[in-house]
């Protein structure tokens, strides 16, 4: 069965670009426009990995990770941050919130897929 990835980004073009990259690589995708939308969609579907932007309106990436980690059933759900941010402070904050990894935009397609394959549950 195909693995399902939830893409969270307020930029439509990024959602589309990441979506196409993942679909081409054999994944199923769900898209959300911010953390709030993502959490709603996460509860309705079986998701194997969350790939989220940091800076988004309403509920941002860090708030989303924190919310996800509050639930036992999502304890081991990999959450990767995909962002233009590279500040150490933000990285530490993301890590402490429970994020699995950090990828800086613009990303290289192969590198993104390698990281996803590394963290997604078999």
């Amino acid at each position: 069965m195909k693995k399902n990835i939830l893409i969270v980004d307020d930029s439509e073009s990024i959602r589309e670009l990441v979506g196409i990259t993942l679909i081409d690589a054999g994944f199923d995708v769900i898209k959300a426009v911010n953390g709030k939308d993502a959490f709603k969609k996460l509860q309705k579907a079986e998701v194997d990995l969350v790939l989220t932007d940091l800076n988004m309106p309403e509920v941002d990436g860090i708030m989303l990770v924190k919310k996800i980690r509050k639930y036992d059933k999502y304890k081991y759900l990999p959450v990767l941050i995909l962002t233009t941010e590279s500040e150490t402070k933000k990285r530490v904050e993301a890590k402490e919130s429970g994020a699995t990894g950090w990828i800086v935009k613009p990303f290289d397609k192969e590198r993104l897929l390698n990281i996803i394959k590394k963290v997604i549950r078999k």
Partner: protein
Amino acid sequence: MSDMNSIYEEEVLELLEKLESSLLLLEITPNDDGLVEDIFRSMHTIKGSSGMFGYDNVAAFVHNLESIYDQIREGKLETTKQLIDVTLTSLDHIKRIVKDPDLKDEDNDRNQKKLTGQILSIMGEEALQVKDDFVEEEIISYYISFIPNEDIFDNGTNPLFILDELFELGDCKIFPQFKKIENIEDFDPTKCLSFCE
């Protein structure tokens, strides 16, 4: 132009329109934190998608502009009439260079330099060293506790080879543990009593 690029361009144009309205409001209410936050976020989105779609000149230009609003957000800079004017001119410039990403048009090339200079001078000398945050490697850390079975030597396995393989995967720090060895006189060298974290 591919469909994806047209989605990008449409998105940038929409965000530029939104930015223009927010800036005009900011001129009336310069201390509105919500407006500054919206402006920062729209710029951040333009920067992110421009970098992803290979519009590097747009990304680099917006990066400087975004940094100003980040500093206003953090209370390090104040909104001024000069800043709003430069930003509004910058929005027109972005609109043009989205259509001319390699700055082939001399006017666009000249404006890119001129406006970048103005933006940097607003930010002060400190900001002249523009940080390049467009290329960064991800770091994923794992904590591994490796406690081999005491009889692991019986089938000829050398656990150190497993650690060697781990080193090939990335940077590692090994902390050997000897807690399982209670008394050195009773130590049996055919048993593996040490483990690693």
